[in-house]
């Protein structure tokens, strides 16, 4: 057997490496705007770097059991529903994208409760994932918009990297994107969540921070910058999960509506 070639450990010249990487020019630029800005963030810190927000919304006439035939499922009891949405560091996919905020809405004491978790340090990610797990049990029915292809796999990756069991695995998951597409593809200009929200729930968002801005907003705060846009991300996420519950109730009504439609048409004949 040959001996392994001995490779001398070398210390690379940092300046040379910077030049090669082409980051020299960038370094000269000031990192942060020199003016005063706010670092205030909403919610309570429930673990170092993990913040928690909770709000309740009255919704007196919500159905207690939801008809899920629109999603090719049977029914679900209202208290089992968990509407969720994540805000992430990007769309690149793979192991390098993380969720920094998870919002979830459920029915609690007769109203809609929205709970939001977000992290202000990377190290708090595990605590966030652990807390989110506690909100889920075997009866939970997940509700999302495009969550089957985006949020759920992303969280699965994060749980795997954190060496934790994935609480979403095996649960019933109602992804509203697909039923919306089936029903409105020919009618609306697109089937994005905000379109559905506007057409079906008559909600128009004001001063909404586009989802694509979320990564930058969080990074700015993480790097010591302003919290202004991060606050707007939280508001955006809150509206997302509230709308999810509204859209679900809407879709729940389709079966009855279609049956009615059908019998009306039947009578005309």
């Amino acid at each position, binding site marked *: *057997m040959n001996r392994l070639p001995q490779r001398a450990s070398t*210390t*690379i010249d940092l300046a040379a*490496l910077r030049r090669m*990487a082409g*980051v020299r020019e960038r370094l000269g630029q000031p990192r942060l705007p020199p003016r005063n800005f706010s670092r205030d963030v909403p919610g309570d810190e429930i673990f170092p770097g993990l913040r928690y927000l909770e709000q309740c919304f009255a919704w007196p006439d919500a159905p207690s059991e939801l008809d899920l035939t629109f999603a090719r499922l049977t029914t679900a009891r209202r208290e089992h529903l968990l509407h969720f949405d994540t805000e992430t560091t990007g769309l690149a996919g*793979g192991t*390098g994208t993380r969720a920094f905020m998870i919002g979830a809405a459920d029915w609690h004491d007769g109203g809609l409760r929205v709970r939001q978790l977000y992290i202000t340090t990377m190290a708090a990610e595990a605590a966030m994932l652990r807390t989110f797990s506690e909100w889920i049990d075997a009866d939970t029915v997940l509700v999302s918009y495009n969550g089957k292809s985006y949020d759920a796999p992303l969280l699965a990756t994060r749980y795997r990297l954190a060496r934790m069991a994935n609480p979403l695995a095996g649960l019933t998951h109602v992804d509203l994107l697909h039923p919306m597409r089936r029903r409105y593809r020919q009618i609306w200009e697109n089937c994005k969540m905000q379109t559905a929200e506007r057409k079906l729930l008559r909600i128009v968002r004001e001063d909404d921070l586009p989802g694509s801005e979320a990564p930058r907003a969080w990074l700015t705060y993480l790097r010591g910058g302003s919290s202004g846009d991060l606050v707007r991300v939280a508001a955006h996420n809150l509206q997302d999960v509230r709308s999810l519950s509204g859209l679900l109730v809407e879709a729940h009504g389709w079966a009855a509506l279609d049956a009615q439609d059908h019998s009306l048409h039947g009578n005309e004949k």
Partner: protein
Amino acid sequence: MAAYLKARLTDEADSALAISHDGSTLARRLSDKYSDRVATAFTVFGREGRFVPLPDDLPSGLSKALMARGIERLYSHQQEAWEAARSGRNVLVSTPTASGKTLCYTLPVVSSVLEAGAKALYLFPTKALAQDQVAELLELNRAGDLGVKAFTFDGDTPGDARQAIRLHGDVVVSNPDMLHQAILPHHTKWAQFFENLRYVVIDEIHTYRGVFGSHLANVLRRLRRICAFYGVRPQFILCSATIGNATEHAQALIEDEVVTITRSGAPSGDKHILLWNPPVINPDLGLRASARSQTNLIARVAIKAKMKTLVFAQSRLMVEVLTKYLKDVFDHDTRLPPRIRAYRGGYLPTERREVERAMRAGDVDGIVSTSALELGVDIGSLDAVVLNGYPGSIAATWQRFGRAGRRQQPSLGVLVATSAPLDQYLMRHPAFLTEATPEQARIQPDQPLILLDHIRCAAFELPFIAGDAFGPDDAGPYLQVLAEAEVLHQEGERWEWIADSYPANAVSLRSVADGNFVVVDRTEGRQTIIAEVDYSAAALTLYEGAIHMIQSVPYQVEKLDWEGRKAYCTRTRVDYYTDAIDYTKLKELECFDGSKAGEGSARHGEVHVVRRVSGYKKIRYYTHENIGYGPVNLPDQELHSTAVWWQLPQSVLDDTFRSRQHALDGFLGAAYALHTAAVVAVMAEPRDLQKAVGSGDGGWSAQVDAAGRGQIRAPDGGLALPDALERFLPTVYLYDNFPGGVGLSEPLFLRAPELVTHALATVEGCECKAGCPACVGPVLAADENREETPRALTARVLRLLGAAA
């Protein structure tokens, strides 16, 4: 007329030989009949097989499957590999072509799947080899009803199949590029696979050299990092063709020790090798007949003697021309299945599979191929191999010859020399081929830019903790640079990926640009894709007017849609083929740094390399006369890269050399010697670091012509004489053959004085007379008696550049 007479003569030769032969008798007959052409004949003696029974500890299901496939015993090296793998060692199998390397890894891998539900990852350099491998595993699986699930996983794998492969694949057969871009960055989806990963098999490791090899070594570092995360430490089983340093190369790739198995137990027949120099047809000019005509003659004789024959040609064009000539003899009856087939990159995969199948089934008598068949594509065994020209390396020559030889049968291998100086040198000095050690494979995985790329990818896959090494070095400085570029975020001890990008997509392991061209047949209103041509070859083969041949059927390119990557062509009947005229020139864009080098200077900076196809020649079949030219208007093939270069002022050259031609010849020799020294100095693969001689102001470029002299090409592509130039500033360039440079040339600049001195030491210490491939490049026989030899001129240039003798 002469051509006709020659054809008659060779026909007579054919009839004399038109009886059944084997490699031994045919080699003797050829040597007797053409003694003036056979420069050297020798025999590589075969050996008896060394067989051992199937190991006792082989799972019984696998033993039964092997027996059902007719394998009732093993070669001794297969048993050695089995034992080494079973004892938990990393294994390198470096035995000749066709010695049954596959079984060396199939046995331990399949056993571990059957016994422990373990998983294995196979990496092959090409998709075709991966497909072969899966087909073979499936056959074994079927024979024993083993239930082993093997899949290819490459760019062609449909999205919906990927999930099933990740979850259920026992053996996943892929390539380094997929591991780098699709598997590692998504490792969480492969969690079950990694948790059970027991073996990593890498075949054809001799192909992972230079920058490509350095990339692979870093991809393997990332793989080991991911494996550690899942708590496994897979064993490596590696296979290599015969190269000068297989063990060292394997250990450099996986950064761990290997047990090397080199003694093949497979029986082999004697191999009769002829080095064949085409006859002199014009003694006054020293002109020889073409290699093509001789290759054609030898292949024809061998096929008529009922020997299955493989011809290797150096270019795709030559494959088609030789195929046509052989088809004209053997396939004139188009109602019969073809006896002659061509095989090369650029054919559609289905066409290639079909040729492979026909070869294996023995339905084809002659096959003409590019280096595509050098690797282990299974085409069954052959009786004769003819090389049309020296492939450029000793290792590749033996690998190609290795394609011939059925079990105990004597086989024939003929190397036909072209007029290229290196080929002619080989004919005069056959020891260069027979006695020298095959080339070494070199990699330099710790080259900073490559390291930076892979640390970037690795940080995306798993965060780094302060003090983590990547390879032998602390990753710290790299992480800091990446954090400064805002792709990483440091928090306490951890460096986490933070950017919204997918870094593996920006790092290509191979230098070739992507974007294949498709060739569309429009004959009689058809719209059929008949071929694919990779980007690098498109400009040379798909210009408008080009005759593009598929299995030697000519199509004429009518329209080339460069942006859309499509070439439209129609069937044609012409008596000529076309050959592109191209040249390369360099222009300095920015000088980063410079220093004095003897009487001249050495510099380092950014350069612009332009490869231009200026036109094409129409060449008539058989007579090979030039019957016309056509213009080509294509975008230049451009490369921005970094380079190191040396030049001497005109006044110094005027004082020292008798003529500018002498100075130019000296520069071309110096480029050759400096390139050799540089490749060793930075452990580069010659193809990754290119050399060029041109004018310092980017005007003209120079290369060695067929007569062994420096030849100058003016900016318009025409030839020019050195004395006619207003300014004469010859410059030697060594440049990174990668877009943006890959970091080879900066260290070369820093070591410029040392390089020049090394180059001179090689030239002066060489035992040759006028110059040879070991020092200034091959020289023609006529130059050996020149007053001022290329070797002397080169030494003078190097001394002027400050070489310390």
